[in-house]
């Protein structure tokens, strides 16, 4: 069973509660998580501190002193959760992430070629052909869990993880693809790098990708990489954001 008949209210201590919609990674279940998040953000809830959407649940952090009696508070959340529908909004936002594939930025491209039996151009074509759904962020600041990669690209992780993977690296790990927002250790097969900063503490806003958005990779050459990198460094770069219905936002 993917989706529960009724959303579950899970106790998570005296300052948080988790509303869980199902027990699988499913875009329809996640759509309910994003809807509940929007309903609470609009709903003038006293005492709500922050909301953390994940694959199949929403955790609501609250101030127990400001909330007062938690029973009606939980009831209200549960009722709102029950009102959500498992429909992915049609006008979803797509953020375009330019990536310079292969070469020095994709040190593991050969591993992916060897494992998949596909030539580099085909790997790039398939990696840029689909829009990836961002279910949630976690692991490190700004790391997005993306779904929807073409399974023919699936490649196991490196046997020996790297001690440092530079920020912006784009990689494949099993059936997943992702972007490293900050320098961190890891075992993903690196196939390219984006000049964009997914996490910039001084940025307005500090994070480029949000849960519920779509990510589209666009292949760029080294010259364009350098141009965009310069714009990012001088904070003049405007990220390309489209909507699922086709208009530029």
């Amino acid at each position, binding site marked *: 069973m993917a989706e529960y008949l009724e959303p579950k209210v899970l106790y998570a*201590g*005296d*300052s948080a509660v988790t509303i*869980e919609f199902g027990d699988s990674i499913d875009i329809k279940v996640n759509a309910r998580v994003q809807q509940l998040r929007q309903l609470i953000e609009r709903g003038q809830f006293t005492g709500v501190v922050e909301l953390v959407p994940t694959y199949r649940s929403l955790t609501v952090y609250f101030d127990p002193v400001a909330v007062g009696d*938690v029973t009606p508070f939980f009831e209200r959340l549960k009722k709102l959760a029950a009102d959500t529908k498992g429909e992915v909004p049609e006008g979803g936002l797509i953020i375009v992430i330019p990536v310079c594939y292969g070469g020095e930025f994709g040190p593991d491209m050969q591993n992916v070629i060897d494992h998949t039996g596909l030539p580099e151009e085909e790997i790039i074509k398939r990696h840029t052909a689909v829009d990836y759904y961002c279910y949630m962020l976690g692991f490190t600041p700004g790391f997005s869990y993306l779904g929807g990669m073409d399974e023919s690209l699936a490649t196991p992780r490196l046997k020996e993880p790297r001690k440092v993977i530079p920020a912006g690296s784009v990689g494949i790990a099993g059936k997943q693809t992702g972007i490293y927002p900050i320098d961190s250790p890891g075992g993903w097969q690196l196939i390219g790098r984006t000049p964009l900063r997914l996490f910039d503490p001084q940025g307005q806003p500090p*994070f480029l990708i949000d849960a519920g958005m779509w990510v589209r990779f666009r292949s760029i050459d080294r010259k364009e990489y350098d141009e965009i990198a310069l714009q990012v460094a001088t904070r003049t770069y405007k990220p390309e954001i489209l909507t699922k219905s086709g208009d530029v936002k």
Partner: protein
Amino acid sequence: MIFEVLSPGLLTTVQDLGRWGYQGKGMPVAGAMDPQALKIGNILVGNDPGEAALEITLMGPTLAVVEGEGLIAVTGAEIAFTVNDIEVPLWQSVKVQAGDTITLSALKGHGCRAYLCVSGSLDMPIVMGSKSTYLRAGVGGFNGRALKAGDRISTGPLKPLTWLSADFSCPEHLRPDRKLDLPLRVVLGPQDDAFTEKGLKTFLESEYTITNEADRMGYRLEGPVIEHKSGADIISDAIPLGAVQVPGHGKPICMLADRQTTGGYTKIAVLSTPDIAVLAQRIPGQTVQFKTISLEESIAATKAEREQIEELLRLRASYRSRRVIPVGSPKAKISERWALRVNGNVYEVIVEELD
């Protein structure tokens, strides 16, 4: 005031109440490991309770006051605290000025994290709503890192309450009691149903030892294996502050201030808010036990702790320092101080007479 760090101590970082609001983006909260001690320290020096201070771990720093004057207070762990080699009580504000040397050396009693609060708070950039240092990503605080010898730290401007709070001491009954060997209180959930009855019994009836892997991110405990029903892995969800995570090896890990925002292991319970700091003040080798309480009891305990802060704010409002020094204009005189309660909040009102 300006301080120069003569020696930094083991791990001295800038912390306030944490960087809330970005967990949904994967950004850990960070913040003081013992927020109650931080709040009390700030009140003692005339600040608002949630302002940034230095969190000191195990072995403290030596600081020279190189410019200005103000109040400082040390709260939290029982640490040796001297100004110019003269011992100074903890939980009390003291005046320091240019030329003074502040030394926080070794622990001499319970606890492992102390807070050095300064009047006017620390002048640090506010990054994403907080001055807290998150070391792993190098965000916030003093250039995103722990203090080093030679660093210079400035405090913000003194506040009207600064000098009025001189020598103000936190009464014994309002200091958090971290000495008790009582079990840590937890509320079961969010994944307590992933454990067998035997597993839950093991968790609540066993003694666990704090391992050497105990830091701002979390405390790994050693002890009897907690039995899962069918597995320890879940689809990743949020990790609340104080969550007791039990991975496949069956040993609990308590998730603290610098924890990652999400994770894929079952969480058997969450520590009651006041007891998160009780654990954070314990050190490797010490033992802990867990005791389940209801959600309502845990909320009541959290409220009681908050009420102690309100009480201390009321006491500060009625406190009259023996060395009242005019604030604002040099000729200003403080004639009255009031504690006003409006909608449950306590406001301190100072009437200043200006010439």
